[in-house]
């Protein structure tokens, strides 16, 4: 089945589009191109990118991380749409959450804590939490102000694409965990209320981490405790948001085995989670205008010319075409296998381009191919 992306972006009921998939398959480019097209067809769009390629960021006029959506210049607004774009700044997003939800005194205490600083800036995993947090914020702002009627979100290039989905749940379940309660306990009540097992665990931590580290952790957790409720609530809300029919997930893949495997995995997972999969974008598919000249014939012709010592240029061009045909056939085979394995999933194939995208014209071209 073919995926009609124009129908998706033109449907006013589509409020959130999430692009996900393995790294290096053109996730961010797809998000940006769709956002641009939707805007030029009259939607009020904000695109949240995470770690875009430099030239792609430049094409959207993004020169620095500033965590605020900025209007993209030179977007054709004749249909009444607009396009804002931003790059996620995870540390700043985290800081903002703390500043918004804690008393000034407590916020200061948290921001200065060494564990908070490590957690918010240098440790892996935070990006996923913060991407979800930012999506929640943008959605709220859109509802309140009507600034946007479509949010397009890119997902982080994580260890596994699933981290993005798991982040809120994981955070939420962690906050219920006994261990955090346990770390908080000394600040709240006497130790003697705890079981022997808990006592043993605390003494291990003391021994392994040292008293000073444990105190720092406890201070951090205690200061953070008031925020946890809010975190959990918002995380649950964002997950619920992703299950709504207003949301559309697009899995982006390329016709290579690894990327297709990841895409299958992701499609299955979305189904299991009850999250709405709009379809799969199969990017960078090799195409040719001369499929009638097969790789074998092309190669044989090149060899014939080389043996006869005639037109080395023609021989080289034929070899090039033979290489290309091999890729065309391979890509087609893998794409067909994927289609057969996922008959109920809508798929759009996007031909590979020679050049990288580095301006809005390039993005428009990608969008044309996505919706062709």
């Amino acid at each position, binding site marked *: 089945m073919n995926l009609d992306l124009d129908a998706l972006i033109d449907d006013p009921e589509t409020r959130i589009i999430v692009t996900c998939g393995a*790294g290096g398959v053109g996730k961010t480019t797809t998000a940006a191109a769709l956002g641009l097209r939707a805007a030029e067809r009259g939607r009020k769009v904000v695109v949240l990118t995470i770690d875009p390629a430099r030239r792609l960021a430049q094409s959207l006029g993004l020169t620095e991380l500033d965590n605020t959506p900025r209007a993209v210049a030179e977007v054709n607004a004749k249909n009444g749409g607009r396009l804002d774009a931003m790059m996620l700044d995870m540390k700043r997003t985290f800081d903002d959450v703390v500043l918004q939800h804690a008393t000034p005194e407590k916020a200061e205490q948290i921001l200065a804590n060494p564990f908070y600083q*490590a957690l918010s800036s240098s440790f892996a995993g935070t990006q996923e939490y913060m991407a979800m947090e930012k999506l929640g914020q943008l959605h709220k702002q859109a509802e309140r102000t009507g600034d946007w009627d479509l949010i397009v979100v890119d997902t982080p290039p994580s260890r596994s694409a699933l981290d993005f989905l798991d982040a809120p749940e994981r955070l939420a379940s962690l906050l219920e965990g006994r261990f955090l309660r346990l770390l908080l306990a000394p600040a709240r009540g006497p130790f003697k209320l705890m079981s022997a097992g808990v006592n043993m665990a605390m003494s291990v931590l003391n*021994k392994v981490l040292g008293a000073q580290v444990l105190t720092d952790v406890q201070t951090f957790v205690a200061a953070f405790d008031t925020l946890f409720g809010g975190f959990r609530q918002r995380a649950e809300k964002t997950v619920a948001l992703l299950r709504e029919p207003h949301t559309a997930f697009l899995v982006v893949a390329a016709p290579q085995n*690894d990327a297709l495997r990841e895409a299958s995995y992701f499609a299955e997972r979305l189904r299991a989670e009850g999250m709405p999969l709009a379809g799969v974008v199969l990017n960078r598919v090799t195409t040719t*205008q001369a499929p009638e000249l097969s790789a074998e014939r092309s190669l044989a012709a090149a060899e014939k010319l080389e043996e006869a010592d005639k037109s080395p240029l*023609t021989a080289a*061009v034929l070899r090039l075409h033979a290489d290309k045909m091999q890729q065309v056939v391979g890509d087609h085979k893998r794409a067909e296998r994927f289609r057969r394995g996922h008959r109920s999933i809508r798929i759009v194939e996007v031909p590979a381009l020679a*050049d990288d995208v580095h301006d809005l014209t390039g993005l428009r071209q990608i969008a044309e191919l996505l919706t062709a």
Partner: protein
Amino acid sequence: MARLHVVTGKGGTGKTTVAAAMALALAEEGKRILLVEVEGRQGLAQLFDVPPLPYVERRIAQGPAGGEVFALAVDAEAALLEYLDMYYHLGRAGKALEKVGAIDFVTTIAPGLRDVLLTGKVYEATRRKAHGKLAYDAVVLDAPPTGRIGRFLNVNHEVAGLAKVGPIRNQADAIMGMLRSDVTQVHLVTLLEEMPVQETLDAVEQLEALDLRIGSIVVNMVRNSPLDDDALALAVKEKLPTAELTKGLRAAGITIGDDLVATLATEAHDHAIRIGLERENRDRIDALGKKVVELALQPEGIDHGALFDLAEELRR
């Protein structure tokens, strides 16, 4: 000589494949090489076509020159329990930590600690002795991607900043000491495309600022052009002599439809543009002044044979 080879690269550049090929290449006659993965993706099992690897070092292949390659998929939770047992002899208490969710805590809210454990295990394997000599002649680490490699390798420095004294501090200092010594080299895998090259340049800058050593830049999936430079220059300007192509195709016995010559010229044009971009990217890599290794594209995909071919290329 370097004994710990850290292999990183942007996702999709083939870093796991290169790490495996490097381990095979290092496996000279009589040598024992350990190949470690830390991302929990079971990439090595897929690559060598074996069932998922447990948290046990097991022999996975023989190198083309006769040495042995062992593989290990490090699991952070198992590594933590092992660590506690090894240094603190905590059989039951380890279980107690697991029960209250401390292990979960370590691997979720503080993912940095996960990296501490993973690097700790690599450190332990690299310097482990058996029968009075090193257990492994070299360790090859299929490391996190370039976007996270600086953080990953520097995590023990961060820990040292948090823990001012105590056993954790000592361990962190020891690991950092090894990573920053000439025992360790970081190899960056890239393709000749904009983003992987940009990430490689950024990573080199970042790693050197952290006092880590760059071993080599591995340019992966290199394709040679059948067109020579003159032809490429013409193709880029869309000035390939169509008359010659028409004549050449006839001589080759190809029946020419209306558009075939134009299509082939367009394909050559697109190809020449891509080669031009690749050369720009290659120049940016060469400007780093590091050792550059090229690995050819394996058009049939990566299987055992392709892995051995890559290992042979690396040995040269």
